[in-house]
């Protein structure tokens, strides 16, 4: 019993992460510095927001493939409202968040309301959101020249930490309460293990599912703003492939893709492991493709250990 407990996926990942840190402190230049640590957080914040919101989604046995596209749509809407409609930054930001929530609501409506498979629904809405973003900009417009006060969200620091790190911490706290402290968390796990059983146990399955997809949409809206502020631009291709990185972080963190088991803590570890890998390889003068290879190996190891224990 003790031994089984020690070998949780989170612990395996922690060991891998320590391995990464040791390797890169030896092989890479200026890797083990505070500034670089903060830089890793800055670069991981958008994927991190998506991954955090994806954790409860995947806990229910669902998936959201549309969050990367929704990030792009929110960023573009933000730019359009600010520049083309001439509205203040605050209005544009609210609109971007609104778009995120609206996109999440569409997913929630289809998955929770009509019981359609999340994989198919969000594959469809991913294409829809990306298409809307491209249509809105003709694939060509690039919104930029945002005021410094807004860029501070992506490029500045507050109390020593990158501004977006605070956003990420707040999101992690919120999701952690939802998943681990509130009764809702138990309901989400129950849905993940057996949706029919959960229904018979009196859990409002539809409402709980709607909540997690709505949250995922909202997180995509926030991530869109952080992205626009970090790069100083909003283009229709923003966040391409981010949903896959986010899913990787969640699964790497030990959340079962079949639902029922997982933790916010694991997701954060997964996120850091991926961020450190990409950053460390660059500082070790290794080409970026190697990050893809090693991410794959990391996943295979983490899942391989899980499978050996019979509960991937």
């Amino acid at each position: 019993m003790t031994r089984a407990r020690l070998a949780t996926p989170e612990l395996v990942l922690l060991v891998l992460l320590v391995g990464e840190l040791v390797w890169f402190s030896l092989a890479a230049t200026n890797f083990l510095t505070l500034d670089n640590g903060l830089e890793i957080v800055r670069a991981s914040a958008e994927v991190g927001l998506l991954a955090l919101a994806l954790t409860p989604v995947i806990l229910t046995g669902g998936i959201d493939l549309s969050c990367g596209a929704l990030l792009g749509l929110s960023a573009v809407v933000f730019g359009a409202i600010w520049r083309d409609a001439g509205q203040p930054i605050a209005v544009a930001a609210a609109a971007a968040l609104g778009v995120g929530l609206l996109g999440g609501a569409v997913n929630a409506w289809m998955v929770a309301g009509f019981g359609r498979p999340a994989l198919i629904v969000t594959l469809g809405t991913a294409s829809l959101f990306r298409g809307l973003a491209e249509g809105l900009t003709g694939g060509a417009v690039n919104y930029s020249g945002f005021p410094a006060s807004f860029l501070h969200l992506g490029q500045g620091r507050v109390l020593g930490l990158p501004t977006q790190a605070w956003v990420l911490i707040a999101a992690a706290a919120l999701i952690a309460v939802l998943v681990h402290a509130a009764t809702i968390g138990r309901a989400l796990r129950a849905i993940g293990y057996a949706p029919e059983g959960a229904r018979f146990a009196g859990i409002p399955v539809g409402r709980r599912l709607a909540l997690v997809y709505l949250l995922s949409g909202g997180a995509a809206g926030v991530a869109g703003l952080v992205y626009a502020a970090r790069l100083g631009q909003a283009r229709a291709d923003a966040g391409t492939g981010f949903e896959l990185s986010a899913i990787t972080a969640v699964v790497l963190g030990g959340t079962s893709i079949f639902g029922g088991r997982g933790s916010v803590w694991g997701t954060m570890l997964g996120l850091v492991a991926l961020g450190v890998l990409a950053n460390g390889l660059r500082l070790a003068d290794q080409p970026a493709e190697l990050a893809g290879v090693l991410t794959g190996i990391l996943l295979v190891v983490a899942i391989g250990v899980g499978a050996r224990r019979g509960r991937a």
Partner: protein
Amino acid sequence: MTRRTMAVAFGLGLGLLTLGAAGACRGGGSAAPDGALTVAMMPKNKGNPYFVSCRQGAEEAAQQLGVKLLWDGPTETDPAKQNDVVEAWITRGVQAIAVSVENREAMSTVLRKARGKGIKVVTWDADADPDARDAFVNQATPAGIADVLLGHAARLSGPAGGEIGIITGSLTAANQNTWIAEMRKLLPTKYPTLTIVDIRPSDDDRKKAFDETQTLLRVHPKVKVIMAIASPAVPGAAEAVKQSGRKDVGVTGLGLPNASKPYLLDGVLDSAVLWNTKDLGYLTVQVATALAKGTPIVGTTQFPGGRLGQLEVRGDNVILGTPFTFTKANVGGFDF
């Protein structure tokens, strides 16, 4: 076999795989003596043969000058990834950064940050904001390229002139847009019989260039010249015109000789304009190294470009030379 031995075997296998992968992917930087200057150089896209041939010249210059060259960038056109790599180079600490800028706005911010940390910044192939870099290695002036391309278009459409359709890189690509702007300036004065009727994106993808050219031919049936101004777009556009069977449509563009060769030889493609890409990579490393050693560029009129001889300096631009046209007659002599 017990479970534990299986686990150990599994772990060992993965370990070997990791080592193998690390070995296979080596080659991000070239060897140089310790304490040498490090020049980090970024293409827009590592897979594009245009940038592959630039790298050959860059490696040659690095070897000649004894500097360590880091070569990295996105494997696909992605402005966010370019930023991430430059951020890492700033943290790592290099003496010079040379970037072919995919997106001006996003890159200029991070390049200014690099300059703020005392790193010399050179842009090459595609420029950033002037205050974000110390010098720009200009492969050819936009006006020169626009003039040569329109000259070919005018010859292809004959004395009566006609419609031109352009297949560009991405619609936001800075240098393609500058060339198009220069063409628009030249059209009314020097080429009044020509008009640009459509500009379509290829996103540096041959297949997309093929599809967009087919669409263009359907939407504008009177078009006389297809001008493909991104190197992967040339064979795509030429293939589309070839398959359409339209002998009355001429194709010209800006492309690599090897990719253009089959279409130049069978006559679908009239001409491909370019500069010597190896020389561009070579010159970029020369300029970056000179700056890192403290040699000024601004205020001089000539730059000693190693085997390229003395090159013209215009303000903070180092000019590579005049564009070159590959044709059926001369393309056999080039291989990149």
